[in-house]
């Protein structure tokens, strides 16, 4: 079975491609990319002018909540949300219940992903048993079962010694250690960024230094061990400085930034809805200087990847006093509109760089397939409608949870369609592709 995507702007930075090309899919794989390819019996899919064909987006930081917290999300609802957001693959965090620290949990997640048959799912295993920060998890077993990295996300790895051992041990399997960077003593019982707005609203603060201490520790230990260290959901300008210095010194450090951290600031605590629990996340929304540092890092190449930290919570859990609400927001279905609007249309970066941040780099960091449209690769493809007028509607999200601060936002740029292994798994009904053959 052959399909020819005809006439789109193909953006494939991994192969230096950016121009109007045709793309031929054959038996679930990319067969050819080139100008005016012959039809030769393929079904032709006309890509509207201005639409972008790029390697499938990969979100390397999501919480699918299964097993154990299915009232927030399941693997099935999570991957439905992913493909609606343009992601052909997601990497899911191990802080499920029970924790993904053994092959049984990993296998269950993969089985559920297989049943759902939408986006690819790459489980990430725990660093320590139960993510308790005491004993290393059975990392070889996790690797064999299908985990691509390890982390104790939700919390930092408890001690510098355990982090050192994790880096050394996981390094043996070529798995990066992904760290939720935070000094728990400095964070204390903080619930918002320490600054004017937290002071004004009487919310206990979390300084940027709490995160940066974790980043500095990881960079030093990555240097000591020679293993790959990845900073999750970075938010503070001091963290950016630490990563930049580490990279300059040749340390194997990479980092990701979430769309909310390059879009919002702690001003959102006060308005438009004071104490909105949908602006409560960890790390917290920080002040403008930090947000601007995230944007600068995205523009100058210090930031490797954009990842959503998709963190679904049931509305009952969020409909409480601010300090009692759980941290986190959903992000899979808002990432592309935010990134196109705030980064590309704002003139900060060009499209190939965005595709690098959201596809090629996550594939490289996690050492998974994807991120490229090279002939022979699986046909994981995202079609973007960069000029589509998008209105975010929380109630319409595919995710089981609707905890987003972006409800009602109007943004320029969206997803037109998502193709996994040559199969169309999502078509946006609000684009012209919604009525055509795809």
């Amino acid at each position, binding site marked *: 079975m052959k399909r020819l995507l005809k006439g789109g702007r193909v953006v494939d930075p991994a192969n230096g491609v950016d121009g109007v090309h045709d793309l031929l899919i054959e038996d679930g794989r990319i067969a050819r990319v080139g100008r005016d390819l012959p039809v030769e019996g393929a079904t032709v899919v006309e890509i509207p002018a201005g639409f972008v064909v790029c390697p499938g987006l990969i979100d390397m930081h999501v919480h699918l909540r299964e097993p154990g917290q299915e009232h927030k999300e399941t693997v099935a609802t999570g991957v439905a949300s992913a493909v609606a957001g343009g992601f052909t693959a997601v990497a899911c965090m191990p802080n499920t219940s029970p924790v993904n620290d053994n092959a049984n949990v990993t296998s269950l997640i993969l089985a559920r992903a297989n049943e759902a048959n939408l986006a690819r799912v790459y489980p990430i295993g725990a660093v320590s048993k139960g993510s308790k920060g005491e004993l290393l998890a059975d990392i070889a077993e996790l690797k064999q079962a299908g985990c691509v990295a390890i982390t104790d996300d939700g919390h930092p790895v408890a001690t510098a010694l355990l982090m050192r051992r994790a880096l050394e041990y996981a390094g043996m399997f070529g798995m990066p250690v992904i760290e939720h960077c935070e000094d728990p003593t400095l964070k204390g019982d903080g619930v918002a960024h320490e600054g004017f707005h937290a002071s*004004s609203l*009487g919310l206990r603060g979390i300084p940027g230094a709490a995160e940066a201490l974790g980043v500095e520790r990881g960079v030093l230990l990555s240097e000591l061990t020679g293993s790959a260290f990845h900073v999750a959901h970075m938010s503070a300008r001091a963290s950016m400085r630490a990563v930049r210095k580490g990279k300059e010194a040749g340390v194997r450090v990479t980092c990701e930034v979430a769309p909310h951290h390059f879009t919002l600031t702690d001003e959102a605590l006060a308005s438009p809805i004071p104490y909105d629990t949908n602006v409560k996340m960890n790390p917290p929304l920080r002040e403008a200087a930090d947000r601007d540092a995230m944007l600068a890092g995205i523009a100058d190449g210090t930031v490797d990847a954009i990842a959503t930290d998709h963190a679904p919570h049931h509305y009952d859990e969020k409909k409480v*006093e601010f300090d009692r609400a759980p941290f986190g927001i959903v992000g899979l279905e808002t990432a592309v509109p935010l990134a196109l609007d705030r980064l590309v249309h704002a003139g900060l970066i060009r499209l190939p760089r965005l595709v690098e941040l959201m596809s090629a780099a996550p594939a490289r960091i996690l050492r998974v397939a994807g991120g490229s449209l090279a002939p022979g690769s699986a046909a994981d493809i995202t079609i973007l409608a960069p000029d589509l007028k998008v209105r975010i509607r929380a109630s319409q999200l595919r995710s089981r949870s609707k905890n987003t601060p972006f409800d009602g936002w109007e943004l320029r740029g969206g997803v037109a369609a998502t193709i996994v292994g040559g199969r169309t798994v999502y078509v946006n009904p609000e684009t012209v592709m919604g009525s055509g053959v795809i």
Partner: protein
Amino acid sequence: MNTTSQELDQKQAVTALRRKDLLGIAELSPGEIELVLDTAEAMKEVGTRPIKKVPALRGKTVVNLFYEPSTRTRTSFEIAEKRLSADTLNIAIGTSSVVKGETLADTALNLEAMSPDMIVLRHASSGACHFLSRVCRSAIINAGDGMHEHPTQALLDAFTIRERKKRLAGLKIAIIGDLLHSRVLRSNIHLLTKLGANVWVCGPPTLIPADIRRFGVTATSAVEEAVHDADVIMLLRIQLERMEGAYFPSLREYFRVFGMTEARLQLARPDVMIMHPGPMNRGVEIASEVADGPYSVILDQVANGVAVRMAVLYLLAGGAEHEEAA
């Protein structure tokens, strides 16, 4: 028309609190604040009558929903409500279904199903009143939410200062103590700066909120500097449990560095007023000689609390407009 007369016109136009709730001082205009203070003067007179009751809130139901222990504030609200002839109901944590794990929203909605007109809320979480105001149709009056605001305390403080000094604009007011955890501080900063006072805040650096200067105050850890030529000195309670957070080494050392003593008082203006929102820790933030001395207006504050809360309840219920309609 020049700006000043425009402002005057606007000020004169403020005859009611045209808002559903009193969540904080931050949202109030200077005109609204002065309206409350002026109304409180009339309410204070009611308290001097042999029969201390007016029918202003007759037929209105007010629920005092207190999630934190409080003697002064709860009693003060209750007396204010009774003097206005409202039907009042007190709910304190431990005697209600909250101990069964009910959420704040559910508790409030259940109360609301019985159609109260106002809910006076005291809660340990900052923003609890904002949250409730989005859930409930009833008017919400903030009786202290976490570390955020305690608006009626700031209003009664301002009333007490104005009663003595006849003005707030231009006064040097020093607020000394645990600034970080104090809702009284935040409400007072908003109120006093809106009415033109020169506000100084003072405490150990470990207890000063981040970016405090953006509130338009002068911050220092030198207590002599804060007290120098002050017209008003307001002490904030040092919460004994804060010791565990290692914010300062000991209560003894706190008193040595920041405690309000008669010696330090000499640096202030001769007609200085000493204020404290209570409850006091004698020998920690304030020496007993100062608390009981001639400059202290601490009990006047308590007395004025009733009048100010009557004013707030009356104005939120619609003030004179409501009475005419009734």
